[in-house]
């Protein structure tokens, strides 16, 4: 078993007791909720007349069902309106902070938490959403839960959990030009597979992660769950502390040193023991594109689509299913694949730095005439910042649509959906069948800059060719 890791230290700090079942009861320091996975939990509380034990440790926003084109209330979609209203009523009744559309702070829950300083190192963080792993970028143990567990946290601020193993994911060296955090995590998942992380927390370590900004680290940790790991984290450092300082919920100046001392105390020890390790050379990673129906089916942009014949049984079956759904041919290049829709946004890549990278590609160019391009900021604050920098004008001039904050076409619980078997180049996190709102729709995951390049050329492209022209 692992020893001396951040995972072990934070676990021990939050452990209340070992339960008769053998599971540990763990305090959850930050609980985030949204409109889709919380109403049923509140209904369970109401049924029994129960209270929320620590209302100040839960924060709510609204993201999945929020339309990004017309955000005036009531929403046209009566189901969406009912979900929004229910969350408003529940948070009011139980005294929980709600960052709604009028707050100026609404957005995708995993973007809102960090940007307002709620997310901090050494916390346990849970939310009824699998991409809660995002917050691990700060050195927190953050993971997705179901609605029954949402209820358990509301009533007790704790969960019954079993200890995971810890796998060190080490990427050293220097990334090549045009290679982003998204490409790093897609490359890791392509190597370790979508089941590689089952039973593990991933600790990302090495030059590449140390040199990343917080927003890049969030992109990496966000997709840990796509590799099967419920938790992924990076040890906190000066980059982390600089990001947190001055944010709304950050520790005050007078308590800052005490906060940093706590954060430093939960870093993995130099001689920490891990259950497993994986090493990757940064120089071997190129811009990535997925071609299949799970996020592990990804290749470098210069590679050809793999032949299922050479794969193990389960991988071959999934690959064959993927080729039927995607209407692609083994052995052919992914580059040049025609796209219909370009989607930039989501909890993976809907932050200001993502929009800046995309804007660099869009600037002075036009979206191909057959492509619908959507740029969806991850939060109202990201939107305001982008508009202050004039990025919205660049997107609009290029022929892309500039939207309001929300989950949008990542999971299509709102008005943004693929139609029929459209192909989408997407900066989101899942290429599952039906994920983007059409049972026959197809998704190619890539970085925001790669999506922008595909939008301009109308086909999957190597962003480095456009970046060279710009440079």
């Amino acid at each position, binding site marked *: 078993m692992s020893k001396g890791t951040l995972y072990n230290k934070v676990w021990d700090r*939050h452990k209340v007791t070992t339960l008769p079942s053998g599971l540990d009861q763990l305090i959850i320091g930050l609980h985030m909720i949204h409109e889709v996975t919380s109403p049923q939990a509140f209904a369970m509380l109401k049924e029994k007349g129960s209270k929320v034990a620590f209302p100040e440790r839960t924060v709510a926003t609204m993201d999945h069902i929020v339309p990004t084109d017309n955000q005036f209330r009531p929403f046209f*979609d009566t189901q969406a309106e009912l979900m929004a209203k229910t969350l408003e009523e529940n948070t009011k009744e139980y005294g929980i902070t709600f960052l709604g559309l009028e707050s100026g702070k609404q957005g995708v829950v995993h973007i809102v938490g960090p940007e307002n300083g709620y997310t901090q190192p050494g916390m346990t963080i849970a939310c009824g959403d699998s991409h809660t792993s995002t917050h691990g970028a700060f050195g927190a143990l953050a993971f997705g839960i179901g609605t029954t567990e949402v209820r358990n946290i509301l009533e*007790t601020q704790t969960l*019954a959990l079993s200890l995971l193993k810890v796998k060190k994911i080490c990427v050293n060296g220097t990334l090549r030009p045009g290679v982003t955090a998204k490409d790093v995590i897609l490359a890791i998942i392509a190597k370790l597979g979508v089941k590689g992380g089952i039973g593990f927390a991933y600790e990302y370590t090495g030059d590449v992660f140390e040199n990343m900004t917080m927003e890049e680290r969030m992109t990496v940790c966000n997709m840990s769950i796509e590799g099967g790991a419920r938790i992924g984290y990076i040890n906190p450092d000066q980059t982390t502390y600089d990001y947190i300082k001055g944010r709304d919920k950050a520790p005050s100046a007078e308590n800052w040193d005490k906060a940093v001392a706590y954060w430093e105390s939960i870093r993995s020890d130099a001689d920490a023991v891990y259950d497993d390790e994986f090493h990757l050379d940064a120089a071997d990673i190129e811009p990535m594109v997925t071609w299949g129906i*799970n996020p592990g089916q990804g290749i470098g942009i210069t590679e050809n689509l793999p032949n299922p014949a050479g794969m193990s049984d389960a991988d071959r079956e999934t690959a064959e299913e993927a080729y039927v759904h995607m209407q692609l041919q083994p052995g052919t290049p992914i580059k040049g694949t025609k796209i219909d829709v370009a989607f930039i946004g989501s909890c993976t890549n809907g932050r200001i730095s993502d929009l800046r990278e995309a804007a660099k590609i869009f600037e002075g160019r036009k979206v191909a005439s057959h492509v619908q391009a959507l740029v969806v900021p991850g939060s109202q604050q990201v939107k305001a910042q982008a508009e202050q920098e004039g990025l919205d004008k660049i997107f609009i001039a290029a022929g892309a649509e500039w939207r309001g904050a929300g989950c949008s076409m990542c999971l299509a619980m709102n008005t943004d959906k693929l139609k029929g078997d459209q192909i989408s180049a997407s900066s989101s996190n899942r290429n599952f069948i039906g994920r983007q709102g059409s049972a026959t729709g197809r998704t190619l995951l890539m970085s925001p800059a790669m999506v922008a390049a595909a939008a301009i050329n109308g086909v999957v492209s190597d962003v480095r060719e456009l970046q060279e022209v710009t440079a």
Partner: protein
Amino acid sequence: MSLERKVISGRAVPIRGNEVDTDRIIPARFLKEITFERMGDFLFQDARFNEDGSEKKHPLNDAHYKGANIMVVENNFGCGSSREHAPQSILRYGIVALIGESFAEIFAGNCKALGVPTLSANKSDIQMLLATVEADPSATLTLDVDSRTVRIQSNGKEDVIQVTLPDARRQSFLDGSWDELGTLKGNLDKIKETAASNLPYFTNFT
């Protein structure tokens, strides 16, 4: 219904496929409801129905499997989104236990929270089980949580396979304690003490 889940018997429906994610179990567009009540209606919606509502060939559309209360699946079943709507739709459809090669962690945890055992078996046993229930939809399965075995009776023949289930989960199904809320709640004082002594961020480091 008793909370104990010691022995579960019945017929099984085979669901083939690796990495069957929770978006496939229930697509996101059907989650726009504030209760789980109707979730059983949308189980495997896109795999079972065409856009015009006509049926596709799917085991859940096959009359032979009507009334089955056990689902046999392959590997990494339930990966992806943490939506409890997925196990809710399975349970509300009438499935009370799953047997598969492997399950995604969040999904298996959500099943446990609903009192639905997810039992794992090795690949060859799962393939045998799938082939058996495909050839004979009337085959009877008996899941014994205590001994971690599954007995399969088909056409006068009987097989027994070993399954795995973590100790804590097995215990919770045997004694009916799989809904942990009461146990967790009993420690409220200890929770407050632990937070006060170990977690300086609870008071924002004052």
